[in-house]
């Protein structure tokens, strides 16, 4: 009796080979992306290592040519800008999200959502130009800012970067809050505004915190909006928001193009601080978001 071969031949064999080739390409593509991330993070860690001293966090920059010194003014400055940006974008973003999910007619809500997405797609340098024309080049009436760069201007620019991120995440979580919760509250005779503030918002708080954290991670690393709004800073720690402050991303940017090689080490160390902050915050935020999504999913 002749043995029947189970080996594919001819046309089937070719189809299987093509299939295998495509699968391998897809795996290689995914590996490539992960490898690039590993190389970026790895080279930052490796090159930052010898510059990460106690002085680096507590001292200001030194005069050109000297070694040592640190980025304490930039750490303070970035913290200040992020706080200003949060103070503007979080209330606006959360309220806008409440409007879309609780009050607005479907069509109006869709429009707000669309324009927030468009805003999210604007190049960040254009947002810097916007604030430059609005509040740096000209004087702002009533407020004591304008005509020069300031932490206010930089923080405002970052708040525009954060707004769509905060608002869209909050919207997404608010729509996950089950209607049965709202109806239970109405059935108890509670009015709409108290339902929103004491039932809907508290159950979505996890998502709001996550959205804010992700937005902070993004804003803390932005350089482009600060070039025109908050870049000519002093070398000392400043707490005055009406003056331009030094920031971590801008420090990396200017050190990276500096002719002084000792500053390159500082740039890597600053990049380490930034990347560690960004990766840790966005990783925790993502985990939190998954958890609060699951929690809301279970109520339904």
């Amino acid at each position, binding site marked *: 009796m002749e043995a029947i071969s189970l080996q594919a031949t001819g046309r089937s064999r070719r*189809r299987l080979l*093509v*299939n295998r*080739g*495509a*699968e391998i390409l897809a795996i290689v*593509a*995914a590996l*490539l*992306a992960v490898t*690039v*991330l590993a190389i*970026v*993070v790895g080279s*930052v860690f490796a090159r930052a290592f010898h510059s990460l001293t106690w002085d680096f966090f507590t001292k200001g920059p030194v005069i050109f040519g000297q070694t040592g010194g640190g980025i304490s003014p930039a750490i303070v400055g970035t913290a200040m800008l992020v706080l200003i940006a949060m103070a503007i974008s979080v209330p*606006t*973003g959360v309220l*806008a999200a*409440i*409007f*879309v999910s609780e*009050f607005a007619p479907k069509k109006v809500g*869709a*429009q*707000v959502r*669309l*324009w*927030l997405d*468009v*805003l999210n*797609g*604007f*190049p960040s*340098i*254009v*947002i810097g*130009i916007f604030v430059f024309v609005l509040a740096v*080049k000209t004087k702002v009436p009533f407020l004591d800012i304008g005509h020069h760069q300031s932490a206010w201007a930089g923080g405002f620019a970052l708040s525009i970067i954060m*707004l769509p991120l905060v608002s869209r995440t909050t919207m997404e979580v608010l729509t996950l809050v089950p209607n049965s919760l709202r109806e239970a509250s109405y059935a108890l005779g509670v*009015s*709409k505004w*108290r339902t*929103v*503030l004491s039932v809907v918002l508290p159950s979505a708080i996890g998502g709001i915190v996550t959205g804010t954290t992700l937005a902070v991670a993004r804003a*803390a*690393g932005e*350089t482009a909006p600060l*070039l*025109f709004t908050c870049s000519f800073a002093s070398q000392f720690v400043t707490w005055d928001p009406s003056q331009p402050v030094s920031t971590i*991303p801008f420090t990396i*940017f200017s050190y*990276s*193009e500096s002719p002084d090689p000792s500053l390159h080490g500082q*740039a890597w160390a600053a*990049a380490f601080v*930034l*990347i560690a902050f*960004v*990766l840790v915050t*966005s990783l925790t935020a993502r985990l939190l978001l998954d958890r609060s999504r699951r929690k809301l999913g279970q109520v339904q």
Partner: protein
Amino acid sequence: MGKLRGVEVTAPPVTGLRRTRHALDRIGDRTLYVVTALAGFLSVLVVAAIIWQVVKGSWPAIKQFGISFVWNQTWNPVTSVFGAREYVLGTLITAFGAMLIAAPLSIAIGLFLSELAPPAIRGPIGSLVDMLAAVPSVVIGLWGIYVLIPFTFHDIEPWLHDWFGFTGIFGTPTTAGVFPAMLVLAIMATPITSSICRELFINVPRELEEAAIGLGATRWEMVKGVVVPNVKGGVVAGIVLGLGRALGEAIAVTQVIGNGTPLQLNIFKPGVTLASNLANQYSGAVSNLQVSALIYLGLILLVITFLANLVAQRIVLRFELQRTGGN
């Protein structure tokens, strides 16, 4: 007291509750509505305000040079003659070049994560690819200068030059240039496009995929014949969104592109883009007209990315509507 389906009905008068509901709750409801509506309106208004202020800032240059600014080549601060052609072309070339690399890569990653990867590694790998988007652009740029450029200069560019040098596109290797800028932009656009592709592919109805497999198709034939055609528009939108990111990136590009004009056929040579030029010259502008011309560059960038985003968002919205049945 009132009429219900034409029948007069009487009810005992409500006491107690009525007044409190009317006083505080009506004010509360109204206040919350007005405050939130205002915030929603403000968010939309920001978009209009950005466009208005950027037009306002570039107005002197618009008046001086008109629309021909967009295709005039000269950029000369000494004679105060400005034109954007080099920057517009540079922007389009780097961004499209980046997407030539990023688009196939993103689709492949999307397919890997939706069709191929075992569930256990699907989540972690997806998160890692998303993490790539979280790395600040200035860090990518720093890495580009000191790690990527030496690598492309010593290893990739000579190889490309040896094999494809005859085309003229891959000329003599140079350190900073358009090619590393394309690579950096591809790194930044890939997470955006691939995460959209993954979502789209995952949501292709399971029955369609199983039908293809049931008819004897291989996995690749199923992807080619069923999965991708089903969400073609969405994939295009994802690529356009990635392109929007690549068009608008300023910092990382200015760090690696070398900031040189004129544009050359050899992509290893330095170039310049709208955004990179803004990031490079933010402090160097001497005259008001030059500042205004720089802002005009920003306006062109804004218009390009605005159109790209609007188109992409509309397509994405249509897909979402399709998926959720209009809800």
